[in-house]
């Protein structure tokens, strides 16, 4: 195992182990997503047939809000005992740390999605009328889009005053095309109208992922060492 992947693996397993023992992020995310689901149900009639049209948006907005809760905690953990400063002066490549953090967040948000989706199906009586398998690439690409940018912007907002509020302010405008793609793809698949296809949105989402993963990897070192 080469050194950068070794560092990534070590950081990733450390984060997952910490999360497994404390369950801080996952518990707060789950409860937050649950609250969003319940609050949304008061703003319209969840039993109505039209609700199917907005269900895709609902699911992803709930996941996005919940993901912000976890993303905010990503780097805060490393501030205690100056772990991040230690990392900064060590010769370890910055991108290994970034990839580890992004993968860790990806795992946490995926677990949240796996746990919340059945609840959504029960509460909003969702049925997939289109090709259900397409939901898998949408979920993977969409989660990665939120997580890769979120991890980057969380590192950025770490250096600001009132950092908890900075993350959504930076993340939401940039994520709009990804969010639109996820929502449209999910709605298309749920509604199952044979005249439309989710393919365009999946391709756009993949493009977004490639562009911003490259951007994050290119700029993370600069942001981490910004002084």
């Amino acid at each position, binding site marked *: 195992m080469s050194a950068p992947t070794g560092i990534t693996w070590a950081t990733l397993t450390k984060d997952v182990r910490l999360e497994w023992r404390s369950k801080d992020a996952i518990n707060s995310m789950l409860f937050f997503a649950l609250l969003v689901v319940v609050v949304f149900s008061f703003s319209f009639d969840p039993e109505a047939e039209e609700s199917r049209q907005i269900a895709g948006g609902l699911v992803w907005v709930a996941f996005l809000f919940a993901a912000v809760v976890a993303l905010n905690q990503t780097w805060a953990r490393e501030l205690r005992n100056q772990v991040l400063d230690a990392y900064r002066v060590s010769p370890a490549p910055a991108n290994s740390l970034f990839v580890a953090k992004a993968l860790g967040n990806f795992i946490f948000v995926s677990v949240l999605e796996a746990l919340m989706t059945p609840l959504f199906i029960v509460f909003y009586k969702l049925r997939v009328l289109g090709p259900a398998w397409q939901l898998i690439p949408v979920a993977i690409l969409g989660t990665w889009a939120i997580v890769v940018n979120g991890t980057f912007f969380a590192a950025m907002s770490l250096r600001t005053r009132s950092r908890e509020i900075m993350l959504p302010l930076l993340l*939401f405008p940039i994520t709009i095309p990804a969010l639109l793609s996820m929502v449209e793809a999910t709605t298309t698949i749920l509604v199952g109208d044979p005249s439309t296809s989710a393919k365009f949105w999946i391709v756009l989402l993949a493009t977004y992922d490639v562009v911003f993963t490259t951007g994050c990897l290119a700029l993370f070192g600069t942001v981490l060492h910004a002084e």
Partner: protein
Amino acid sequence: MKKAFPILGLLTAALLSYALYQALVVAPTEQTMGDVQRIFYYHVPSAWTAFLLFFINFLASIQYLVRRDQKTDTIANWVVIALGVLVCIAPYAFRTLLPAGVYPSSVVTTGIAFVGLYFLIKRLFSEQQTDMLALTTAEVGVVFCTVVLVTGPLWARPVWGIWWTWDVRLTSTLVLWLIYVSYLVLRRFSSSGQTPVLAAALAVFGALDVPLVYFSIWFFRTQHPQPVVGGGGSIDPRMLRVLLINWVAFLCFAFLVCWSRYRLERTKREVEETQALEALLEPRSALR
């Protein structure tokens, strides 16, 4: 330099008044929309100016990031030149793929402007100054973008019968505005030493986002009138003349505002530096 500023100010005032006269009196009245259409002479130049300013912000941010490292600087130069050449060749090579109404020459102009502006900024501004330039253009760009977003609904209400619609141009301009407002918020909230780097990184992300925003919303829905200049629509040559006069006036105005904001920022930083230096030299003065 000190004298040039008031001269430019007077020139801008004269030009703006002339453009106003042209737009309100000289320009012919539009057949179907009537006088409401005259807001077009403010809406479109503001939009072009805002986009130009955001474009300069993007270039200045790239410069700020790459100049910190000699190697990336050299690579960036070649990437910019390669991109410029590609943009000049591609529209002629893939003429059939261009959307209807977009001329290859207008794409080439954009490519040349991109490369030209990049190296112009590189020549004229030092590393610290590129950051000041980025800040200035973002602030003034947000103001012009706000003008676009306000004049648009004013026109849309009588013509379309609605204030706002989630059309591609409206939505992507709004998203652009949101991105740059978040840029300004970041600048406001980050601690001073790291602000330039973080802001530059965000500016690059925002610029990467723009084409994706445009394509996603373009696929989503479209209602805005097709562009009448450089696009498929047609425009009365007299109207085009007035539009261009207005654009020149707006560009002068934007340049004037940017310049004074730039000078203000430079003075502010000089004062901060001097105060920091004084505090170091004379420890007691810091306690006052």
